[in-house]
């Protein structure tokens, strides 16, 4: 993984000192709450319902075991012994004291971590494919570019006070596992005939109140120009994005109002004078960053492990786990493993400090001391030998991280919701739990196959409900919590936005509503047809009819 040099350490230390001073000035009254707000947000600190919430950046989801142990320590020392992994590959602590935050940031800096720009109207954590570097379908390892963009975004002086937050995702593979179509900017690696690497540039995707799929504004951007081009896009947005209405301030609204063609023309005009300038990236720098992501020292293995194959045949429960939670690896004899943080009864994405420590030990023992956070709020061991999977599985079972439900209905993506978040209109975690309890028959859930169910407690869509095959949105009606249901959303390279099926439901009805949607699917599906494809084939009507017929 990328390691800090003396420059990175110095800049981060200065940031910690700056925020310590700002916090002190706020506490003594020298800074007003309004003046302090954007400063603390750009250091990941929200003032939440019950306490501050601190969001710590996990750049493009890559974490070392040492860093995870530090997060466990922070959970124990400054919080209530747990943390919450988010859909932006970050981690949040819900109970730190404001006064302690500078100390927390100083502790994080010792393991090359920070909370820079995890909130506020600035460029947020850069995200990418959680199988980066190991996926067989990858054209280019996106991590060196993600690090390049991370450094460009960090403390960018021109873009710290944008109209609204700004999210960038990169994919190095034609199979999009980073939801790049629903980001403010999506970058898709493209390889030309002579092996030249560049990026297809998309802008204006996003979820939230006005969900949109991004538009391609440039089919091929040479990699050397990536930062100049980002500067150009951000400058157009910074100058012309709406600032009069925060609900219309995201770049997607600007792109829509201008039309993607005109927006692209503005960007190109802005880019032309800086093209080839000092911020064009020399090959040496890309090589330097790529060296940080060289493959670990894999053993040379002939192919699939025979013992592993036999164990799948012998042990159906292990086989089920392999089927859902183990993923192919480009190196023979290796696999990637998803640790499910979606056990029924535990808020999706939550892990206790003890679990984090245990996972860190397992990462050391099984996966070269590294792990990743997926945007579906699970953890990934990217480099596990197939011959070790059986023993890893039994260790994970003991930890509660072996629920074989990746990609299944119960692998619910869910924001913290009204239990924690002051923005939320409704609770989301209890809804997730009620649905998980309703679908407690694992064989049945396996039979249903791939279904993404995403829940957000408000329009801000942290639970990505628009791109759930089944999306649930918490809404407020006269002070009561209701839930609007959409179907047909999907992420990936053919991303689509779900359509609302009709009037919203009370919390108690939600497990039944989901069950009825599933019934329609089971009755109508063609062989091997996924839920999403059945919805696309049949349209909303039969689903609507069933759900609302029963409600009357």
């Amino acid at each position: 993984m990328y390691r800090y040099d003396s420059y990175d350490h110095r800049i981060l230390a200065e940031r910690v000192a700056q925020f310590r001073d700002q916090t002190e000035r706020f506490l003594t009254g020298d800074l007003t709450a309004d003046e302090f707000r954007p400063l603390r947000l750009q250091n990941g600190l929200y003032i939440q319902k019950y306490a501050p919430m601190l969001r710590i950046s996990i750049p493009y989801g890559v974490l070392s075991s040492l860093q995870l142990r530090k997060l466990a320590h922070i959970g124990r020392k400054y919080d209530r012994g747990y943390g919450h992994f988010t859909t932006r590959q970050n981690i949040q602590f819900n109970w730190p004291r404001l006064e302690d935050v500078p100390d927390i940031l100083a502790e994080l800096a010792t393991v090359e971590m920070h909370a820079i720009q995890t909130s506020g109207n600035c460029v947020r954590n850069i995200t990418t494919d959680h199988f980066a570097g190991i996926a067989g379908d990858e054209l280019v390892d996106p991590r060196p570019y993600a690090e390049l963009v991370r450094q460009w975004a960090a403390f960018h002086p021109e873009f710290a006070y944008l109209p609204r937050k700004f999210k960038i995702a990169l994919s190095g593979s034609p199979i999009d596992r980073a939801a790049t179509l629903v980001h403010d900017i999506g970058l898709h690696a493209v390889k030309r005939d002579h092996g030249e690497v560049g990026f297809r540039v998309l802008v204006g995707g996003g979820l939230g109140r006005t969900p949109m799929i991004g538009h391609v504004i440039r089919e091929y951007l040479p990699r050397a120009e990536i930062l100049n081009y980002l500067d150009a896009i951000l400058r157009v947005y910074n100058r012309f994005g709406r600032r009069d209405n925060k609900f219309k301030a995201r770049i997607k609204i600007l792109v829509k109002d201008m039309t993607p063609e005109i927006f692209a023309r503005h960007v190109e005009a802005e880019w032309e004078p800086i093209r080839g300038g000092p911020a064009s990236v020399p090959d040496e720098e890309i090589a330097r960053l790529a060296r940080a992501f060289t493959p670990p020292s894999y053993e040379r293995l002939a192919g699939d492990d025979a013992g592993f194959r036999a164990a799948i045949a012998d042990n159906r429960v292990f086989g089920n786990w392999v089927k859902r939670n183990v993923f192919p690896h480009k190196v023979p004899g290796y696999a990637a493993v998803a640790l499910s943080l979606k056990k029924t009864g535990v808020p999706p994405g939550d892990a206790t400090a003890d679990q984090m420590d245990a996972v860190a030990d397992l990462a050391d023992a099984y996966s070269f001391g590294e792990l990743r956070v997926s945007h579906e709020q699970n953890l990934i061991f990217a480099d596990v030998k197939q011959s070790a999977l059986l023993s890893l599985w039994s260790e994970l079972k003991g930890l509660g991280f072996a629920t074989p439900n990746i990609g299944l209905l119960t692998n619910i993506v869910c924001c913290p919701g009204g239990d924690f978040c002051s923005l939320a209109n409704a609770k989301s975690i209890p809804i997730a739990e009620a649905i998980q309890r309703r679908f407690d028959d694992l064989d049945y859930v396996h039979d249903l196959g791939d279904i993404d169910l995403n829940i957000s407690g408000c329009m801000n869509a942290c639970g990505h409900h628009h791109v759930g095959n089944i999306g649930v949105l918490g809404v407020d009606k006269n002070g009561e919590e209701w839930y609007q249901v959409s179907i047909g959303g999907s992420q990936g390279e053919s991303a689509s936005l779900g359509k609302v099926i009709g009037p919203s439901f009370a919390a108690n009805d939600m497990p039944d509503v989901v069950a009825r949607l599933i019934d329609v699917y089971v009755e109508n599906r063609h062989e091997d047809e996924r839920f999403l494809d059945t919805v696309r084939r049949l349209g909303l009507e039969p689903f609507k009819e069933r759900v609302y017929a029963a409600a009357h």
Partner: protein
Amino acid sequence: MPRLIRDGSIIDDRWTLVREAACVEDVPRAASIVPLALWLAARDALIARADIGVWLKPDDDPQALAADCPALPLIAVDFPQFTDGRGYSIARLLRERYGFTGELRAIGDVLRDQLYYLAQCGFNAFAVRADRDLEDALKGLADFSDSYQATWARSVPLFRRRTMAPPMRERRAEGAP
């Protein structure tokens, strides 16, 4: 006389900021910073004076001053709220695209915690909000000793400096990430 920060020092401000002026007659005889709209309307009358600067609103187009950049002694950019970041882009355009080398001044809601980024983008003068202490605000300019990006203040981005003269890798305890 009011004071401000310029080039890292606190100095007397000899310029009068003319927030509103309908015509040339509204402009004082002393050195004055006039709104862009007035400058554009009365350019011929004002250009003879060497003591006229122009200030821009966040939604003004700095390109309107492209031809005047070589001659103008001072351009100011207004920040109605410090959270309005448009002025940062305006500053870089004035400096980097239109070649303005005179005094570039931040006016309005100008506070200590934004000074470093403002300076990176090309501002060299800061009319800090009147209710704030200038000595205190001055500290904001030293918040960071380096930046990753190519900016006006550091035209060579860190990665180019790194590849030219790679720093010694930090020697850290074993087991560091």
